């Protein structure tokens, strides 16, 4: 197989990783009926908190754990406002993004100051189960977290469609009145959905700072959270769709990097913009058949 293609596939898998984490996280939130526009901020928080803890303790795994905990807390805080109080989900989500972004930058500045060179830590190593094999070798030379991300797709599908917990989430996202009448605790399950979602989103951010970069920068998330918001619609709120969406977006993004090296004479910003434009186009086509959870964006109140 062509070296270009091998490199492209390997890069696609890597670029798709944070998108899979983020979008699966958003899936839990939205399937239970809550739009979580705080995703960009939570990914940011995940990147920061895991990096800060990892660099202070010297342990990448502790850093990852810190990221997961931060995500759980962020999800829980969001549930206080959107589930318990029922505030407008668009605005509160953006508010949380601004909050966690500001908080992370604040914390970073406090801990690391304003160094000329951004602080680095030795990142996670890649794992290559296929070693030196010609094709499979480089394609499967990925971070452990990448494997986890791809494994999560069938796991999440199973969780949503073949467990009682998943049934509850699906019911609450479609018809919370019915779920309430059936004896389910709508608030608690939505909170759980948000917390799981927050943790996954946070891991998506942690992947960037602990594995891909080994550093934390101002532009580390660069709008990936918003892409996940688009991808969940494109995926029609199904785990399988998340996989395809992340691969398509990741593929186009990875392609963009390589097209530059091939000496195409178009401005490289066009290629940077390409994945976003492709996503908008895909949304337009997919959007017409979209079947959003019926209770999405509606707060539930019992008298």
């Amino acid at each position: 197989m062509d070296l270009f293609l091998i490199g492209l596939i390997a890069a696609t898998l890597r670029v798709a990783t944070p998108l899979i984490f983020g979008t699966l996280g958003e899936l839990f939130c939205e399937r239970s009926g809550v739009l979580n526009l705080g995703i960009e901020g939570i990914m940011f928080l995940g990147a920061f908190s895991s990096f800060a803890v990892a660099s202070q303790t010297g342990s990448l795994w502790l850093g990852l754990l810190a990221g997961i905990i931060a995500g759980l807390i962020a999800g829980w805080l969001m549930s206080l406002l959107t589930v318990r109080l029922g505030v407008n989900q668009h605005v509160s989500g953006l508010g949380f993004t601004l909050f966690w972004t500001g908080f992370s930058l604040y914390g970073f500045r406090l801990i690391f100051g304003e160094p000329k060179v951004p602080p680095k830590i030795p990142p996670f190593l890649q794992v290559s189960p296929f070693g030196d094999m010609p094709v499979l070798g480089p394609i499967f030379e990925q971070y452990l977290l990448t494997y986890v991300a791809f494994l999560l797709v069938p796991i999440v599908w199973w969780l949503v469609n073949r467990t009682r917990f998943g049934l509850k989430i699906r019911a609450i996202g479609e018809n919370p009145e019915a779920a309430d009448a059936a004896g389910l605790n709508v608030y608690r399950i939505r909170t759980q959905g948000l917390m799981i979602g927050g943790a996954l989103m946070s891991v998506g951010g942690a992947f960037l700072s602990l594995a891909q970069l080994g550093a934390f920068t101002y532009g580390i998330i660069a709008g990936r959270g918003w892409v996940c918001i688009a991808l969940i619609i494109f995926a029609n709120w199904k785990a399988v769709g998340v996989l395809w969406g992340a691969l398509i977006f990741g593929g186009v993004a990875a392609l963009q990097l390589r097209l530059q090296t091939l000496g195409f004479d178009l401005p490289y910003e066009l290629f940077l913009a390409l994945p976003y434009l492709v996503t908008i186009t895909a949304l337009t086509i997919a959007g017409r058949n979209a079947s959003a959870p019926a209770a999405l964006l509606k707060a539930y109140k019992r008298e």
Partner: protein
Amino acid sequence: MYAVQMRGIVKRFGEVLANDHIDFNLLQGEIHALLGENGAGKTTLMRILYGLYHSDEGEITVNGKFSKILSPKDAIQMGIGMVTQHFTLVPTLSVAENLALSEESGFTLNPVVIQKNVAEASQRFGIQVKPGALVRYLSVGEQQRVEILKALYHNARVLILDEPTAVLVPQEVEVLFEALERFRKDGLSVIFISHKLNEVMTVCDRITVLRDGRVVGTVEKTATTQTELACMMVGRENFGVSRQGERSQGEVMLQVENLGARDKKGLLALKQISFSVRAGEIFGIAGVSGNGQTELSQVLAGTLKPSGGKYWVGGKDMTRADPAQLSCVGVGRIAEDRHASLVGELTVAENIALEYLDEFVNNGVLDRTRIRKNADKLISEYQIKASADDCIRTLSGGNMQKVILARTLSRQPVVVIASQPTRGLDVGATDYVRGKLLEQRDRGAAVLLLSEDLDEIMALADRIAVIYEGQIMGIIPANEATKEQLGLMMSGTASVTHDQAQEVESA
């Protein structure tokens, strides 16, 4: 032996006292009716029993034990099941998944297993359902059966049915009553909420009448009559508004030909409907809800594009008209859903002006004095209990309907399309609305009345049509119509032939 006892129940919603120190007892093995007008407090009381609401005061005893029911989960555990008017089913899940929703056991969910369980339960209780079907594709009657099975599946010994016959044709009602008799023999207790006197007298043992949140009395069926119950319900001897005498028929003002339309799911809800309405008559279309009335009213109101066919207003082709054009041409539209025709957060005056805004405007700027004056005039004319600057959402259902009437009827429309105009209104408001519709008829407007209330149709209409599964089953002059005949048409088992219908049309 009492299955359920409720003592001193009080429930307030803001300023409204929905339940005022209510005592209610249910004997084991009886079918007990909870009778009352819309807004009397029946549903509120039962929602408290089922744990959906918390009472402000009072206590509940189940099987002799004092119980705190804080959520439906508690109620289900105590053997109380409820089937409401708005089905609590999740449309995108299957029947089996819906039933599995309140199960506690197990982490995993195997579709084959749960479907088998449901099939067994269906056999055991004698209620026919399709376990693997997605709820969104079931008919209303089928969905209700699923609801009832759901309650029995969780070992309910007390079954609360909230207006169960509202969505059933007369023949399906009989099937339901047979099931209730079977339940009674099995020792189940049933609470039957209704406002339909004849049904209550047919199937129930005891009847408790509520009025304005208070218990008026509890009587044995054998010791009372429909008339007495009616008095208890409304507190006065007679009631109701109905048409007086015949009217001479004017020319055809609304003509509908082969109209078709799709519902929200994309299925054909309206199939080749044809009829006409003349000036000076009320043309009533009866039918159980869900047979295409909603789509018909939406097409004629301009909010749904038909999939085929045409319709004319006063000779003008208005088939693809939007609401603004219809208003211009003189069509007065009273929609099924008050909340979808009035903007809750805007004021009474703003809502009234909204439909004809261009008349209240000087170069794009609102003429607030004129808007206010117009609103004040209509408020006094239509006896609306609100001021022009009140937000619509603070008004009662009856007053909201009056605002809609004021906005629509004050324009002297040539055609009036009224969809379920008295749904959810109390007696006073209902009489008022019916009176207004008759007024329009006497004025010479062509009135199309779509109503699920057969009594209403029979009281007001000059000619009656029945709609079933998107088609007109027949058109009969009111003085020839009987409830039985209409009931048969409403359930699709009979139809007046095309020739007979033609005769009626040209009469």
